[in-house]
């Protein structure tokens, strides 16, 4: 067979803030890295994100938040994935997340948190190293 598994990634924006520039930039970087990127748009609830991720059979969900929504919403996504027995879908987060919150996020089950200083290249490299198509 010719076809190789291609990585599928969902980029989602939970919460109320209305800026998706960051999410769009990361989506483009993922596409340029050869991933299939499903973009869900703004104002997504954790439930919506998880249902979409399952229907799309993605390997990774990348959550983006700028307005403090991460604290409740990021862990909630992981929790719902578990409830749906879909914990094989990895979750990472990015955006404005205070350093102090990062260990809490990781403990909640997020695999990695990318803060504003992180380069696109290093995010892509992290995905390539840590996420394998299931």
């Amino acid at each position: 067979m010719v076809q190789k598994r291609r990585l599928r990634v969902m980029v989602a924006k939970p919460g109320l803030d209305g800026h998706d520039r960051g999410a769009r930039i990361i989506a483009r970087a993922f596409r340029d890295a050869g991933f299939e990127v499903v973009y869900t748009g703004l104002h997504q609830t954790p439930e919506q994100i998880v249902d979409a991720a399952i229907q799309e059979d993605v390997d990774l969900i990348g959550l983006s938040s700028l307005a403090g929504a991460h604290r409740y919403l990021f862990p909630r996504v992981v929790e719902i994935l578990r409830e749906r027995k879909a914990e094989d879908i990895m979750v990472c987060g990015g955006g404005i997340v205070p350093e102090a919150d990062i260990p809490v996020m990781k403990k909640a089950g997020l695999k990695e948190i990318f803060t504003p200083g992180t380069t696109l290249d290093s995010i892509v490299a992290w995905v390539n190293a840590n996420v394998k198509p299931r």
Partner: protein
Amino acid sequence: MKEIAEKVVAGDVRTVARLIRDIDDGMPHVRDALKRLFPHTGRAYVIGITGAPGVGKSTLVDQMISHLRKNGKTVGVLAVDPTSPFSGGAILGDRVRMQRHSMDEGVFIRSLATRGHFGGLTQSTRSAIDVLDAMGKDYILVETVGVGQDEVDVVRSAHTTLIIVIPGMGDDIQAIKAGILEVGDIFVINKADRDGTDKTMSDLRLMIDMDQKKYKDGKWKPPILKTQAVFDQGVKELMDTIEEHRLYNFKTHGDLPFRKRKDRVGQELAEMVKARLIEEVIGGLVESGAFDMVVEEIVSGKLDPYTACERIVIPVLGKRP
């Protein structure tokens, strides 16, 4: 494999999602699952929605889902976006417009990339349609960007095909004429809130009327509808027209589902054989690097393409020309 098919028929979302992934990734085991699923297909009504990027296809699909759900119908959606020729990746953004249906259990939405594989978009999309059909979805909506032959072939396998345009697309209407006019069962002028709707309407009308001969003897003549998808204007009328076309299909084909019609079955089988042969023959050569070597030989003038083709085909057929 039996288990996969059983779970699909039972409507298990994760199994369906995974099977479509496997189809897209060209995993060999899917053939067995598809064989087992086939007896459960043929119930769904498939609607193709095609048109240039940005004309409002996804917005319209979102509204169509709502109308169908209001009537108690379940819906599957396949939204196809182009793969980047540079990276092989893709941004699949159609879902953005449909996310309000994401948690509705009666709706399954899947984004697909066009990829560049030999089996082709047409084959994998048809198989994905079969999966959603076997899953029990009443309606399957397939959104494609109406550009390549692949996309046209995809909507050709729909029972009703909508071609979406917007006002002021003079040149693009010419382009439609060249390519996909023949496959359109219903024309939709979306963004009818904009100037130029009437002009586009008369342009389209003229084009369709030029084919007057085709519509004799009670043959379906594509109607032209106006919609404003963002405002849910004209969508009800569109759904009614789709229903009319559905009834027309059933009447003219003696209640036969497409799967029982000789012309369709023949065409789809021929395409399937072609895709499989290309995949097996060319696929193997590409993997081993032999294909590239032959191409190099042609490019450098050492070999002509006719001889090259024979070199590839004869061993497979096991005979001399």
